[in-house]
């Protein structure tokens, strides 16, 4: 199972099978601004990165989060 989807599922308390690249706060239960922050914090701990507020404001779908995370990991 995809690691990012697992993390999002865990933070949203929602089955991973119900999530896809396109899942977003608009169509996913429990996905509010606190959940976004918890997803970011889980990724920060796991990958030793830090997201700025500007980046957090772009956490608009699982695909968008993946792109932001990958860009960060590539920069290292």
């Amino acid at each position, binding site marked *: 199972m995809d690691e990012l989807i697992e993390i999002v599922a865990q933070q949203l308390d929602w089955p991973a099978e119900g999530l896809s690249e396109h899942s977003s706060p608009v169509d996913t239960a429990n996905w509010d601004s606190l959940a976004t922050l918890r997803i970011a914090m889980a990724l920060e701990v796991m990958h030793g990165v830090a997201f700025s507020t500007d980046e957090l404001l772009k*956490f608009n779908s699982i695909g968008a989060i993946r792109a932001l995370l990958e860009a960060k990991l590539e920069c290292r």
Partner: protein
Amino acid sequence: MLQDHHSNLMRRAPALARLYETLRADYPTFLAAVKATAEHEPDDFVELGGAAMGWAESALGTDACQMIARGYGYFVTDVNRQHIEYCLRGRYKNKTYKEVYDSVYDNDSYMTFYHWGVFATLFLWRHHLRLYAFYRDSFLPLVAEKASLVEMGSGSGIWTAITARARPDCRLSALDISKSSLDIATRVAAAAEVGDRVSFTVADALTYESETPFDAGLSCFLLEHLEQPENLVANLARNVKSGAPVFLTAAITAAEVDHIYEFRNEGEVFRLIEAAGFRILEAKSAAPAPDPRFKFLPRSLGVIAVKKTTEHW
């Protein structure tokens, strides 16, 4: 269903509907809470949100929705982050007023986003809308006809505009220590078409002295920003007449970047207000739905008090 809701909002409060649409399209993570507010407090949401977004659009032009959605996004993200850290740490970050003044109040670009963020919380947060309704229904009727009011720490001027719109017979003197706050508030007052009855002054609310005392006073969300909030209440008491009604709000166990004074319960705020010579008439403590994962429940308290006319205990 969503479509119905949106077209209804568009009809009743078009500027608010545009903000809602901007949040949905560009800042979807904030939509759930706003939707809950719209569902639970539909009339007050439309009443205040519609009016305030109308003022914002005439103050900011076509950028208003983006500016406010972004300011709100920044503000809420910061509040969430601070709250998580606060629940782990058990106290506010140990900041002095000077540090906050330099990094926040004296920082123009930060202040602009910040103010529009705070501005929006009054109608986008369900518990803040309840304080607005409390102010409108319980405080404003106590203000005498043709009264003069003083407002300390007016910020974006949202309470100033609400008051002046609701009470066309009254005049307001609003103070703030930050010049950029007053620039925004001046624009908001002009947009709300109340500029002729409101004066704005750069002043420190702790030391400001009016030549003639006011008939009523208010200070919203300033107490928790001060090292010694008792000095604000004492100075408010000095600047209003005996018997004058005042409205004060305070944030309780609610961490934000510029909150210095940690009120732990409603009683602490009451005691502070009483100690300055006021009698408490009514209060409303409002909070978001409790989240069991957090140790502290952040809340906003509104207090209506009168300056005592006799020396009773």
